[in-house]
Every structure is written in structure tokens, then in C-alpha cells.
């Protein structure tokens, strides 16, 4: 017993290092594999207020752009009161989608990164405003991410700009319900790749990618992006690059979608152990 104690004392720094390192690695891997942010994040009150101040300053540089986007969205909403096919090019997707089954909660993005492999952002609505883990978030441009951690006044979201987790199941609007998967390359915040579209499909540059109706977290037809380049490499699939609709670098206004039946749907999925 005494020798074990002596051993521990002799190597106490190594043990201390290992214990603390395990603590840090746990946080990293929880985020990588389960999309759960553990101890180190700033969506709680103190960190968020620091970021809020910083974002308030930063937003002065983007005020004009933000106002113009809002103005366009408002104008489009006024012009498009009828339920006509929406014009996806003018950031007015709100006019064309069917949100009858969804509650839309407006929020502000107060902290945002775009240059990491897995980006996150913080919105200023939390469990006090009925935000739950898993809800979808869009900016005035298009789909932005999903909520992964909730605090009373703030929520942490995983951005669509991440290399691990697909946020949304997309489809091509011009081709009836042709769906694929979105993969972000990890470097350019405006560009992503659309995978899984067969070469015999007739698609064109400029076609619109929107959310499909298969998700309980997003309404149908919210823009994801437009096809930028098309090429046919060796395999059986297209190589497609898309321009992302959400401008996560500058966007400040966000909308959280809450399915009115989310609690019931979640419990059905959990009871029947459906893997999403």
C-alpha cells in the first residue's frame, strides 16, 4: 500500500496531466460524435453577454447589408401575399412555404464562426422561449443550422458549415422530389457539395436546392442553395457544387422552426427506436 502511494506521489504530475487531459478530450469527443457541447461553451449567461457586446460592435460594419436584406424580404412579403410559387432568388422564401404546422420564433445570432471545420453559432432565445434541442434554424437567406444545446436565455446551434453532421435533407426543386445529401468541404463558407444525384437526371446550373418535407425540424421548401457548377466525373454520380443561400458570415436575424407536434413525434421515434 505504501509503495503504491509512493508511486502515485512520484508520478503525481503525470496523473494530474492525464486526468485533466481526459476531461478536455471528453468535451471534444462529445462534440464530435454526439453533437453535445459539454463544459466549454459560451451559450450560458456570462460568455454570451461578452459575445453580445462584441457582436453589437461588429454589426455596425454590416448594418447596410443587413438592412437591405430585411428590406428585400419585407418587400417580397408584401408583393407575394397570394400563395403563388415563390421567387427563391430574392430571399423571400417566407412567402412561399407552408408553416401551418410550425411555430416560427425570431431570434438574433450573437456569436458566429465560419472558419472552423465544425462551426457553431449562438442565438439569443433559449428554453424560456420554448427552444428545444434539435430545432431547425434559418436566416433570411436560407437554412443555417440546428440547435444542439439550450440554456435559459441562449441556445447553441451547430451550423450547416460543419464537416461531420448533415443538417438538412435537401431536394432539387425543379426535379420532383429528387433528394441527395449536402456535404461541406470545410473551407469556403459559401460553397458546399451536393452528393448522390445520378447522372441520368436532367439538372442545370441555377437549379434550386431546398429542404425536403421529410424532416420534422424544417418546413418544406426552405432554400439551401443554388447549383453553381456541374461536372460528370468517372462514377455514376454528378459532382455538384452549390452556392449556399445562408450568408452565415454576415447574417444577424434568424428564425427557429418548432414543429407543433415535436414532442409527440420525438417520443414516437424514441419508443420505436427509429434511427433518424
Amino acid at each position, binding site marked *: 500500500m505504501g509503495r503504491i502511494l509512493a508511486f502515485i506521489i512520484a508520478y503525481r504530475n503525470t496523473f494530474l496531466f492525464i486526468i485533466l487531459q481526459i476531461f478536455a478530450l471528453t468535451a471534444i469527443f462529445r462534440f464530435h460524435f454526439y453533437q453535445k457541447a459539454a463544459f*466549454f461553451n459560451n451559450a450560458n449567461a456570462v460568455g454570451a453577454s461578452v459575445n453580445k457586446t462584441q457582436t453589437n460592435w461588429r454589426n455596425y460594419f454590416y448594418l447596410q447589408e443587413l438592412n437591405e436584406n430585411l428590406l428585400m424580404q419585407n418587400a417580397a412579403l408584401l408583393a407575394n401575399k397570394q400563395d403563388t410559387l415563390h421567387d427563391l432568388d430574392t430571399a423571400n422564401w417566407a412567402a412561399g412555404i407552408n408553416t401551418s404546422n410550425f411555430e416560427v420564433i425570431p431570434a438574433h445570432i450573437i456569436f458566429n464562426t465560419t472558419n472552423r471545420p465544425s462551426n457553431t453559432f*449562438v442565438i439569443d432565445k433559449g428554453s424560456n422561449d420554448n427552444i428545444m434541442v434539435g430545432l431547425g434554424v434559418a436566416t433570411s437567406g436560407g437554412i443555417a443550422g440546428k440547435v444542439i444545446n439550450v440554456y435559459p436565455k441562449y441556445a447553441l446551434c451547430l451550423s450547416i458549415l460543419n464537416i461531420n453532421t448533415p443538417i438538412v435533407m435537401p431536394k432539387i426543386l425543379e426535379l420532383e422530389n429528387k433528394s441527395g445529401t449536402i456535404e461541406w468541404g470545410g473551407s469556403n463558407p459559401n460553397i458546399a457539395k451536393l452528393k448522390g444525384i445520378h447522372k441520368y437526371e436532367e439538372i442545370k446550373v441555377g437549379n434550386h436546392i431546398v429542404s425536403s418535407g421529410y424532416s420534422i425540424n424544417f418546413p418544406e421548401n426552405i432554400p439551401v442553395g443554388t447549383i453553381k457548377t456541374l461536372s460528370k466525373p468517372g462514377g455514376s454520380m454528378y459532382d455538384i457544387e452549390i452556392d449556399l443561400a445562408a450568408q452565415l458570415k454576415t447574417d444577424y436575424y434568424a428564425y427557429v422552426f418548432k414543429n407543433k407536434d415535436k414532442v409527440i413525434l420525438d417520443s414516437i421515434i424514441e419508443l420505436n427506436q427509429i434511427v433518424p
Partner: protein
Amino acid sequence: MKRSDIIGYILLFLGLIGLQVIVLNNLDLGAYIKPQILVLFILLLPIEINKSYLLLMAFAAGMTADFLMNTNGLNTSGMLLIAFIRGLWLPKESNPRAEFNVVPSLRIMLNGKWISYILLLTAIFHFNYFLLEFFNFKYIFRIFTVTILSTIFSIFVQWILFKLFLQAKTR
């Protein structure tokens, strides 16, 4: 450690974290240049400090940084690693003479040995950081590229800091 030194190190830490969060994270130099300069705090802590305290300080400093930058433990892991291995490059005795040349303090003289100490440990910190951040074998080439470019930029920023604040008066 003298009281003025303690205040100096606290100011150094606040300055580094401010520079990182307010300036470097907002510079947006693209996906390949992401300098992290907080490691300089660990590199400059005095040699006579107890290693257990050093590890705990690295942990606290890393946690503060992660908390402010939403990095989920990436800084904590790197700071701990550097605090654990930096002793390999430092002289063993507690009060070394200047000939050893690598004597961490707030007033340092740059020379070859110092530069290799700073360069190597900064590179290790960046490699650890990006390896854990990507954590995907698909991106292994990318991890190396980002590490090299970010280390170069980070050394450049550190050199400016040396010239402005940390250079010792000529002896």
C-alpha cells in the same frame, strides 16, 4: 516570484486572450491560416514554478479560452500538453545562468535556442489543436497544411509582441 511578475503574467494572459478573441479570430485570413497565440502564456511562465501548479494554470487558462471561443476543450487540451512537455527543453536547475539561454520570463533575449523552443512548441500546439478539431483521417493533409501556415503566422505575431513588450534590455 515577485509581485510585479505576477501582475505582469496576469496582464500578459489578458492581453493574449484579448488579442486572440477580438483581433485574430475576426481577421478571417481564410480556412488555412488560423493562428493561436495563447500558448505563449505557458511558454513564458517562469522555470521555478511547481509543475502541478503549472498544469492547473494551463487547465484554467485553456478553459477560459474555450469558454470565450466556443472551442469545446481544444485549447485546454493543447495548453495541458505544452505545459506537460515543455520541461524537456528547459534547464533542470531552478536558477540557471544566462548561458542556458532558454530561461522563460517576461524579459527575454532572443537567440537560436529560444527560437527553436518557441517554434517547436507552438507547432506542436497547433498540430494538436487542428488534429483534434478535424478528427477525421480524410483531412490529414489539410491538418498538416493548416498547422504549418498557422504556425508561421502565429510566430510572426509573437515576434511583434516580443519587439513591443517582451524584449530584454541589452545586457
